[in-house]
């Protein structure tokens, strides 16, 4: 039973990270039906900014708890700026173009950002400081949920609740839902669609940056390529839950995390990806729109 719980929480940690990144995919898809393949790179850039800021703050002797908060805020701002800019230069000019064009533009953006970070930073792995202070509140069950697992799970949960509230109750959230339902009609009733789309990119990028800083601090290393695999997994989670659906991205992330974790624990980590993607195929066979994906009425 203890082993089961350990794997459960291990999957929960991993799934929370997937979910944080998957939200960006699903929101962007919900609004403009574009799969933003550069999203994994935003996560990677967030982690790099976190590393730089944490390094500077550490050299000035800031306390650990303030470093993670300030590094996360810096990463959020920086990644949000990147998300905003990418949308402006790579997707907005192609908004009226056939659906394939922005998709290719996204892939190009992804490759560009990877190479940009590789050249400007380094292609080596870099050590990421452990920003989450060690604390032990579970006594002998500490090995189930370590301090960084706990922080990741809690932050992800808080962020998701906040995002749901934001979409449900704020003006911008309503505008986003309206745009997702029908962009032309939204425009006709006076919603600034460009502004809504920019906001979507900014929010999605900020969430990915939080995920980037948290996971980098959790595993202790980053390089320019981490966004690729994390991006693929998060995209899978988004599709699993039903792309375009915010609760779907969360559910998809958690299910993917648990699948991988339990498969590693009870079968073999050799087959981790095999099971994860077999699950995806199965769900798409029986529910082509994903677990929570419905007819395109409520996409955000």
């Amino acid at each position: 039973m203890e082993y089961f719980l350990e794997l459960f929480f291990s999957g929960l940690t991993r799934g929370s990270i997937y979910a944080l990144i998957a939200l960006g995919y699903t929101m962007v898809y919900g609004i403009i039906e574009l799969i933003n393949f550069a999203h994994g790179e935003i996560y990677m850039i967030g982690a790099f900014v976190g590393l730089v800021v944490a390094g500077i703050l550490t050299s000035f002797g800031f306390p650990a708890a303030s470093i993670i908060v300030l590094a996360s805020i810096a990463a959020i701002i920086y990644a949000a700026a990147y998300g905003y800019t990418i949308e402006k230069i790579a997707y907005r000019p192609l908004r009226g173009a056939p659906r394939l064009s922005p998709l290719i533009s996204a892939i190009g953006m992804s490759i560009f950002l990877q190479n940009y970070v590789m050249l400007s930073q380094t292609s080596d792995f870099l050590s990421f400081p452990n920003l989450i202070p060690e604390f032990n509140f579970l006594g002998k069950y500490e090995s189930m949920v370590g301090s960084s697992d706990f922080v990741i799970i809690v932050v992800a949960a808080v962020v998701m609740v906040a995002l749901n509230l934001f979409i449900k109750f704020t003006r911008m959230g309503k505008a986003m839902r309206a745009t997702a339902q029908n962009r032309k009609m939204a425009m006709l009733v006076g919603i600034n669609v460009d502004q809504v789309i920019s906001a979507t990119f900014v929010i999605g990028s900020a969430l990915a940056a939080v995920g980037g800083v948290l996971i980098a601090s959790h595993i202790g290393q980053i390089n320019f390529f981490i966004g690729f695999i994390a991006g693929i997994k998060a995209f899978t989670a988004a599709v699993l839950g039903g792309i375009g659906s915010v609760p779907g991205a969360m559910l998809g992330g958690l299910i993917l995390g648990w699948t991988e974790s339990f498969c590693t624990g009870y079968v073999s980590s050799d087959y981790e990806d095999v099971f994860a993607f077999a699950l995806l195929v199965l769900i798409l066979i029986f529910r082509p729109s994903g677990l929570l994906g419905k007819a395109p009425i409520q996409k955000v």
Partner: protein
Amino acid sequence: MKRSLLVLMVAAMMTIGSFGSASAGKIVLGVPGAHSGDLASYGLPTVEAAKLVVKSINESGGVNGEQVVLSLQDDQCKPEFATNAAMKLLSDQVNVVLGHICSGPTKAALPIYKESNLVCMSPSATSPSLTLSGDYPNFFRTIASDDAQGALAAMFAIEKLGLKKPAIIHDKGDYGKGFAEYTMKYIKEKGVEPVLFEGVTPGAVDYSAVVQKIKASGADGVIFGGYHPEASKVVSQMRKKKMTIPFLSDDGVKAQTFIDIAGDAAEGVYATGPQDITGNPMYKVSLKQYKDSHYGAEPGAFYFEAYSAALALLKAIEYAKSTDYDKIVEALRTNEVETPVGKIKFDAKGDAIGVGFSVYQVKNGEYVEVK
């Protein structure tokens, strides 16, 4: 004019041709290998090493009073040329063979030498099966085979660390999985059953599930095959979960970058890595010899292994006082020779004892050899 040029060329060709053939001396050292073609840079340093060893041995009176001559044969590292080269060596009546360079040609030529009772020693063929299969009792080598690391890791894990229930983890790659499989084989030979043998996905977001599994398996040590990014992730997540069991890995991890990335978690990690030979007296002698005769240039690939092999072969003849196959083999197995790669003799399978890998441990942020 044209005819004299032709005569000159023919004369020149004949000089080169006669250089390789053995007529004057009594002991003939055959040197087959890649002397031309795209892999010549692997084969030519062996020729240089053989020439230098033979020169210094001849100057000091030869082997058992007989002068040594070389017979060079090019196989371009191609198995189909290797059999030709071997036949030519036989017709030159070589006494011992220094070569071949690549594993493939070596495998192709070995049956020919075996039939003619010739000892063959390679400075560079690392394929484990050459010695492990037991098909070629006439084959020896002065380089560690690819499985030697696994054998060393297994020996160290069981005899020095005293592991009873090791967990073996790898990165599913050719190199990492190969190391893990060889290590597992040797661990099983020693009567210890690994509790876990599993691959992790390189680049995965998180390895905590695997770490939980290691923990649940009750392993008393982890042996990891792969490179430093995955190794550092696994070891730091283990340390985060307060698992203090030993962590042993391969030369893909024996690098400063591993310590830089893993940080505090790297402390105490063991890794096998190539032995440091620069302290050997013969290393310095052979390096100086090469530089003196090559205007200060650095020797190429496998030069020291080839130098050691040439020395080992000729010293074995000297020790056996005969060029008889059985006596040479006996001498190679019993007589220790001081060579650039260390003081070596050969085990029953033909691998040099005392060559190859050492175990290192991270202490205060750097790798220190474990004695």
